[in-house]
């Protein structure tokens, strides 16, 4: 099988290029994209990419696989390449490339930092821990599972246009995770920080984030909830 990989070494290359590597795949197995990438690296050890847990938990190997963002370690080859087709791997779009498939995620983390991703509670801490009813805990389902792989934000046109101003789907999903948490008392402060024309309102409901989230989460719905909370507070 032909694997086409985006190559760019800023120290040596004038501009990025695609490198085709022929890889022999076992016939009886549906390998994950990460396994195929490892086989390609055996052919050319200079290929650079991030990986760690290889089971969709760490979020290190987010990349653009045949046009869609995803985690290489949990994307089966059969779901992205038709028989006889080619596997095309590029770095996550919209972020500066450090080398090959490795991108600089600083701006992504900066946006995440903006939403204050920690519990704000101005009441005195109880002796053991802040308790929560099972019903209130359920409100966090579909929110807390985000692994910050950046597949969603880097597939969002609004994040491409304004990565320094629009928080992006990943950050906003986490913003709602804390807004929805009954143990958090910082809602007024949190919402005040989001009520500008960019942070939340740059979301156009394109829903690319929902389409590509490897964990099956729905940032667009969370953004809708944040918008409703802003309306509730501001009208």
């Amino acid at each position, binding site marked *: 099988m032909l694997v086409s990989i985006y190559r760019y070494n800023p120290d040596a290359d004038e501009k990025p290029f695609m490198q085709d590597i022929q890889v022999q795949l076992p016939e009886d197995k549906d390998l994950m994209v990460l396994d195929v990438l490892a086989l390609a690296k055996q052919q050319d050890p200079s290929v650079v990419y991030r990986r760690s847990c290889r089971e969709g938990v760490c979020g290190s190997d987010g990349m653009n696989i045949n046009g869609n963002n995803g985690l290489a370690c949990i994307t089966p080859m059969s779901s992205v390449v038709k028989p006889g087709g080619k596997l095309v791997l590029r770095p996550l779009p919209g972020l500066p490339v450090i080398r090959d498939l490795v991108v600089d995620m600083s701006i992504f983390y900066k946006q995440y930092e903006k939403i204050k991703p920690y519990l704000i509670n101005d009441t005195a801490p109880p002796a053991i821990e802040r308790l929560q009813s099972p019903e209130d805990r359920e409100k966090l389902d579909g929110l807390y599972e985000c692994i910050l792989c950046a597949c969603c934000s880097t597939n969002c046109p*609004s994040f491409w*246009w*304004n*990565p320094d*101003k629009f928080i992006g789907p990943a950050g906003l999903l986490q913003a709602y995770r804390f807004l929805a948490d009954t143990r958090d008392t910082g809602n007024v402060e949190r919402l*005040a*920080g*989001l*009520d*500008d*024309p*960019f*942070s*939340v*309102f*740059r979301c156009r409901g394109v829903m690319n984030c929902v389409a590509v989230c490897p964990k099956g989460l729905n940032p667009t719905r969370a953004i809708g909830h944040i*918008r409703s909370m*802003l*309306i509730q507070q*501001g*009208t």
Partner: protein
Amino acid sequence: MVTNVTNLGRSGLYDWIVQRFSAIILAAYSLCILANFVMNPDMDYQTWSSIFEGNAMRFFSLVTLFALCAHAWIGMWTVSTDYMTSLQLGESATFLRIMFQAGCVLLVAIYLLWGIQIFWGN
């Protein structure tokens, strides 16, 4: 919180609500005009101008004109801040964006004043 001084209401929520309310007004006005065409299949200039003689229709037209101007400004401002950034245009982006926005403000103001003159002038 991102500081911005060129959008309509200085708040994302305000702009978002104005955009949606103005869209409802524009849709209602379009339906009203369409209904007039349906009810007057032989529309001529006399019939057309008589529709706008009543104060109710002139007032509705004025409200729609304001809605159109607000809607257009929010839309054009958004387009300019999406596509006319330093990522796309480099260092000259801010100058080009402000010029584009100033041009839009001028056009919107001309359309508003011209519209008021058409509906309420002699």
